[in-house]
């Protein structure tokens, strides 16, 4: 048997891809903060990224792979785990696990849907093709304008905030989980990592939602 087909192998892959996405999310979140520097900030940041050229595509390809592998492994783990208990208990109490741990597959699927939606929204501009035409004074793509306009409507803001809550749930379990899956915990660190993981998840939530909220309430304006 190949190691990656084993249960532990799948977990390693799950953890590594999860970790990669968490890191991406953090960087992305920090990147989003450039919006507070006004159009100049975020547009320059976006342009910088665009300037990477083939590098950007390489990165996107890697991210897409990570994303797909994570989904594939996540779904297959879920199906295998279902199959491991064909008949359910009439009564089952849990003591240690959490809501977020038990809903990983569902929060994951919602996140997947959100990310597709989100990329269609801001990267492909599928809903508002004219987003592509926004250009700022320096002839850069006007991401600032796009984002601010994107969050002007209540439904869109709600979708993003809801998605970020789902992300919180996914990461509240996920962050400490990849330490455990990669064998990086011990009796002394596990409780701290569990708490810390949840803390980081909350920070990520706040870091992301601050953008749509500030826009919605008009703190950031065109």
């Amino acid at each position: 048997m190949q190691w990656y087909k084993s249960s532990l192998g799948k977990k390693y892959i799950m953890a590594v891809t999860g970790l990669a996405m968490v890191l991406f999310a953090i960087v992305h979140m920090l990147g989003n903060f450039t919006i507070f520097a006004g159009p100049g900030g975020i547009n320059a940041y976006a342009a910088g990224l665009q300037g990477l050229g083939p590098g950007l595509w390489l990165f996107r390809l890697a991210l897409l792979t990570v994303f797909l592998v994570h989904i594939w492994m996540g779904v297959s783990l879920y199906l295998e785990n279902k199959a491991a208990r064909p008949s359910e208990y009439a009564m089952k109490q849990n003591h240690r696990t959490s809501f977020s741990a038990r809903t990983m597959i569902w929060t994951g699927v919602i996140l997947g849907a959100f990310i597709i939606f989100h990329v269609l929204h801001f990267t492909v501009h599928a809903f508002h093709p004219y987003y592509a035409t926004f250009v700022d004074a320096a002839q850069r793509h006007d991401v600032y304008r796009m984002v601010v306009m994107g969050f002007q409507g209540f439904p869109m803001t709600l979708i993003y905030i809801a998605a970020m809550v789902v992300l919180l749930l996914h990461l509240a379990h996920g962050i400490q989980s990849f330490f455990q899956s990669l064998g990086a915990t011990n009796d002394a660190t596990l409780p701290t990592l569990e708490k810390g993981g949840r803390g980081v998840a909350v920070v990520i939530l706040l870091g992301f939602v601050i953008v749509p909220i500030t826009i919605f309430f008009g703190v950031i304006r065109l």
Partner: protein
Amino acid sequence: MNLTLYVWRQKGPKEKGSLERYEAKHVSPDSSFLEMLDEVNEDLIKSGKDPIVFDHDCREGICGMCSQMINGIAHGPDTEITVCQLHMRKFKDGDSIYIEPWRAKAFPLISDLMVDRSAFDRIIESYGYTSAHTGGVPDGNAIPVSKVNADIAMDAAACIGCGACVAACPNASAMLFVSAKVSHLGVLPQGEVEAARRVKAMVSQMDAEGFGNCTNHYECEAACPKGIKVTFISRMNRELLKAIPQVEKKAAGGGF
């Protein structure tokens, strides 16, 4: 005290099972849970019915034979005990109690509350040992073992193979059991020699048995009567990571 029981009755693996209702009357709070079931069984026999089948032997919490899900909790509502150590004073007069067998694909049901846990044996057979030949071993003191490691090994070796971890795990995963043995032997100099082969073989056998995967719910730890910690799972994850690059022609009993 008087109790209402809902007990899973199923004649055999192919028959259909269901929860049956029984009344347990005049139960002494000092009796153990299994003694309460003994008395219910006496009544069943006297009324010409088949008594409830359940596994048990030592009745002192060490053989690992007893195995019941009581009100949805593996080994019932008390900490670090087995069903046979559970006493009726943990319940109140008039309580309803649900009693079900361990449920997992890898633990097929035999009858009523009795399941087949031979998958655990096959996992140990796959490499849950040191390959020491009888005789021809060095003096017990020839290789010192640090007290820290001896204690870790002992913590892990306390596992009684009861299967509560599997029963309690939302994924019916056997990670806690397997990691306990991997850790016990891996941490001792006597077992470390073959640690890489061992962890590969045991994990692949575990998978072949149809247990679920671990998604870190930690319910197993909460259910374990011997206080085996989930950090042993972490240790096993580490051991396998170390082992993967060690290419070998063929590990005993499968492996990778």
